[in-house]
């Protein structure tokens, strides 16, 4: 027994192939074949086999099928005759229905079903008609009953209205409207207290309705009269109620008055005693108005009593000639009289109100009495009308009987349908038995043919017949072919797998080598990157050092600039001092010039002195001996003058020397000033050069610090690169390990392929 799990495309090919998968005994096969058998049995022609789909194409099997079909026709002759026998016996057992028995089952069921549905519809229709009729009747009965109740309501409301109850007027009006509406609805159809109704159709009922309507039409104006006098009746009732309240007070005040007057005199006392009596009589007459009919005499007596009361009060208050009494004087009597008069005021007002409305009151009372009398007749007529409904039979009785008949017919039809179905089921069971037997034989035959297949012989071919096993045999043949293809495929595939695994082994070995080399390369690269990081750090340190140097150069340049500034200031000072000195020397020259002028003047004076001294000496000489002394003095003067002249000449020479020296000094000073100016210019140039140096130094320091920062960032990046390289190294090592694993797996694959080949070696193809 070969146990191979087939791929899903094979199992999904057909149900028959799936069934043969592990078929070991016949019963199992039989149970699985059942659906196929039934399908074959249902077909009208027993000779048509249900073939698998793949027979429709133009394959070599087509020929084979045709042949087997011809053979099958010959073999199946006894089987079909048996089936015919079965069929005829089944037909004899069940009696066919008359008329429609000749039709097929579907047609019979269709006819019977239609009939049953039609009858059911009629039944429902009749029931509906019955329901509709009885509802109409009920509405009429209710409307009539409402008429009866309405007559009583009107009588009741009228009695209450007569005694002045306010709510009764509204009730009376509503009852009147309802009554009128119901009469109208019963006569002509329309809205009533029982909903929409049709008018009465039976003549007797219409007569009864007319008997209700005639007295009603008489009552309506009287009801209107009562309603019109609503205010009169309510006024009467309210006034009487008020007067009844006042009566005890008036009674007591008049009693007090008569008691007070008894002290005055007998005549006055008899007058005063009339007052309580009058009070009682007025009250009695008034209450009589409310309860009973209005008696005109009673009304007249009421008016008279009131005026008598008023006159008596007046006589007691003012005195009367006619009655021969004096006006009351004592304070007790006067106050009692005033109280009585005050109490009487309300009394009098009420009575006069009632006297004013007396005509309306009389009419209203009469109408009310008319209504009360008429409603008795109305009520009895309405009752007669409602009794007419009790006398007549139910209008929907025919419909009810018809619906019962149709229902019974429907049930009968259903029974016929059940019979048809039952017969059909019985027939089918006989057919199924026959089919089963035939199929068992065919299956046993098929199993015999399939004996070698279990031993792995895939060259076996099952014979294809027109039996139900024909399709199975064909499917098995197809499956075996496919299985043969599969085994061949497995053999060639395992060869391919072997060669592929060898190739894969080679590739994975190379891959392993490559990954090893890659790991080495990555390690080398990591070392290089590390040394690069070191050198970048060195560069960064050098850049920081350079930045410090640039900073110090900047500070030196700043110091130099300060020094140059100081120098420029000093030179300016020197120039100022030189100019000051030159000014002084110029003044010195001017002074020496003055000295020269003075010396010149002295020289002139000396010369003149000399001349004078000579002339004096000459004069002395001319004087002879007398002038000898004088001559000596003149000689001395002349000698002094001569010496002065010589000294003056020396001074002049010295002054000239001084002036020349001064001139030279001034020139030298100017040259010095020039030199100082040029020196200042040079210092300025030096200062600007220094500031340029400072600027350049600053830029240099900035650049160097930015270089330092960038190199630091670079160092960070390089360390990240190092980490990345480490990751790569790890990944590469993983890859190497995976490659080794792959090699192992490939080995396993090779051995699997070998075992697969061994497993299919048992098949003969």
């Amino acid at each position: 027994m070969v146990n191979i799990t087939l791929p899903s495309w094979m199992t999904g090919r057909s149900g028959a192939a799936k069934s043969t998968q592990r078929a070991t005994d016949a019963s199992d096969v039989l149970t699985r074949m059942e659906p196929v058998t039934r399908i074959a049995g249902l077909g009208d022609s027993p000779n048509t086999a249900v073939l698998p789909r793949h027979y429709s194409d133009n394959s070599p099997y087509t020929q084979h099928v045709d042949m087997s079909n011809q053979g099958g026709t010959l073999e199946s002759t006894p089987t079909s005759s048996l089936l015919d026998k079965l069929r005829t016996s089944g037909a004899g057992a069940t009696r066919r229905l008359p008329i429609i028995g000749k039709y097929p089952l579907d047609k019979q069921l269709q006819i019977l079903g239609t009939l049953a549905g039609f009858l059911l519809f009629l039944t429902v229709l009749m029931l509906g008609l019955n329901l509709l009729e009885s509802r109409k009747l009920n509405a009429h009965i209710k409307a009539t009953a409402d008429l009866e109740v309405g007559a009583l309501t009107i009588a009741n409301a009228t009695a209450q209205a007569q005694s002045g109850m306010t709510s009764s007027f509204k009730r009376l009006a509503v009852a009147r409207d309802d009554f009128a509406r119901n009469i109208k609805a019963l006569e002509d159809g329309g809205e009533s207290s029982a909903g929409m109704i049709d008018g009465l159709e039976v003549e007797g009922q219409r007569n009864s309705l007319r008997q209700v309507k005639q007295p009603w039409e008489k009552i309506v104006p009287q009801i209107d009269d009562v309603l019109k006098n609503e205010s009169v009746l309510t006024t009467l009732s309210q006034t009487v109620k008020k007067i009844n309240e006042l009566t005890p007070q008036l009674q007591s005040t008049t009693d007090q008055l008569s008691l007070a007057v008894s002290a005055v005199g007998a005549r006055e006392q008899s007058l005063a005693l009339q007052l309580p009596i009058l009070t009682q009589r007025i009250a009695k007459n008034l209450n009589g108005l409310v309860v009973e009919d209005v008696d005109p005499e009673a009304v007249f007596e009421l008016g008279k009593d009131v005026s008598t009361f008023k006159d008596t009060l007046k006589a007691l208050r003012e005195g009367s000639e006619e009655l021969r009494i004096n006006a009351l004087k004592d304070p007790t009597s006067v106050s009692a009289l005033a109280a009585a008069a005050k109490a009487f005021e309300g009394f009098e007002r009420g009575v006069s109100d009632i006297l004013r409305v007396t005509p309306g009151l009389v009419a209203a009372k009469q109408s009310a009495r008319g209504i009360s009398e008429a409603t008795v007749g109305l009520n009895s007529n309405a009752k007669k009308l409602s009794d007419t409904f009790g006398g007549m039979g139910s209008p929907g009785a025919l419909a009810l009987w018809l619906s019962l008949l149709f229902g019974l017919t429907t049930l009968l039809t259903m029974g016929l349908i059940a019979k048809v179905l039952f017969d059909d089921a019985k027939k089918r069971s006989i057919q199924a038995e026959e089919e089963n037997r035939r199929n068992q034989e065919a299956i046993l035959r098929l199993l015999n043919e399939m004996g070698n297949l279990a031993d792995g012989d895939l060259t076996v071919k099952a014979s294809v017949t027109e039996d139900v096993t024909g399709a199975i045999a064909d499917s098995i043949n197809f499956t075996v072919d496919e299985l043969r293809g599969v085994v061949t495929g497995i053999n060639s595939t395992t060869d391919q797998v072997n060669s592929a695994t060898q190739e894969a082994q080679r590739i994975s070995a190379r891959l392993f080598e490559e990954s090893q080399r890659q790991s080495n390369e990555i390690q080398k690269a990591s070392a290089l990157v590390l040394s690069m990081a070191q050198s970048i750090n060195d560069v960064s340190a050098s850049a920081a050092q350079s930045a410090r140097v640039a900073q110090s150069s900047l500070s030196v340049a700043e110091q130099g600039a300060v020094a140059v500034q100081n120098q420029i200031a000093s030179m300016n000072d020197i120039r100022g001092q030189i100019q000051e000195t030159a000014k002084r020397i110029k003044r010195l020259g001017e002074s020496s010039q003055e000295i020269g002028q003075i010396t010149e003047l002295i020289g002139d004076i000396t010369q003149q002195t000399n001349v004078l001294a000579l002339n004096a000496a000459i004069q002395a000489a001319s004087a002879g001996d007398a002038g000898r002394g004088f001559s000596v003095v003149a000689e001395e003067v002349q000698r002094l003058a001569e010496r002065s002249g010589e000294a003056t000449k020396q001074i002049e020479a010295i002054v000239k020397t001084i002036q020349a020296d001064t001139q030279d000094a001034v020139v030298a000073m100017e040259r010095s000033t020039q030199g100082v100016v040029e020196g200042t210019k040079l210092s300025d140039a030096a200062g600007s050069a220094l500031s340029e140096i400072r600027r350049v130094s600053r830029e240099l320091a900035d650049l160097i610090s930015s270089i330092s920062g960038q190199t630091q960032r670079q160092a960070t990046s390089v360390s990240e690169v190092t980490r990345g390289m480490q990751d790569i190294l790890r990944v590469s090592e993983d890859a190497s390990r995976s490659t080794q694993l792959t090699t192992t797996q490939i080995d396993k694959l090779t051995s699997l392929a070998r075992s697969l080949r061994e497993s299919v070696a048992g098949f003969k193809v």
Partner: protein
Amino acid sequence: MSKLDLRSFQQEISERLAAARKSGGDAPRLGFTAGDQRYALPLTEVSEVAPLTEIRTVPGTQPWFLGMTNVRGSVIALTHLGALLHKTTTARTANSRVLVLGGDYARLRCGLLVDSVAGLRVITNTSEQRADHAWATNVGADATGAQWILMNLGLIARSTGFLSIMPELESA
């Protein structure tokens, strides 16, 4: 330049005055220069030493005859001594002075223009060393040893050359 000692000066003056009163002694002479030669004249032969004033030239006269001038009211004829004696130019300087002749020669009414007046000199050791000149008889030396030609005005006054101021007269 030595400072004058006033006390000794006064004493010297008073001594000399006393000496002058006692004996005549050698009279001082007026020393002057003309044409690079030092000459001396006795004071008695000179009436005045005057500074150079305005000169009115006289046309057609000898080159050394400068013309006429006015010295405090008296008009005198002025002769350039250097030009006359040494044929120098008639240039005049600030030191040029006019010696107005006096004494015996006052009637000549003439003056000599000298280059400069040196002052009073006492000249001793006179000798007739120089006789080559028409107007000089003796030569002497003063206290400092300087040589002075002692001028003899009489010879000059008598010479024709000095008197004939007209060139025609001299040639005639």
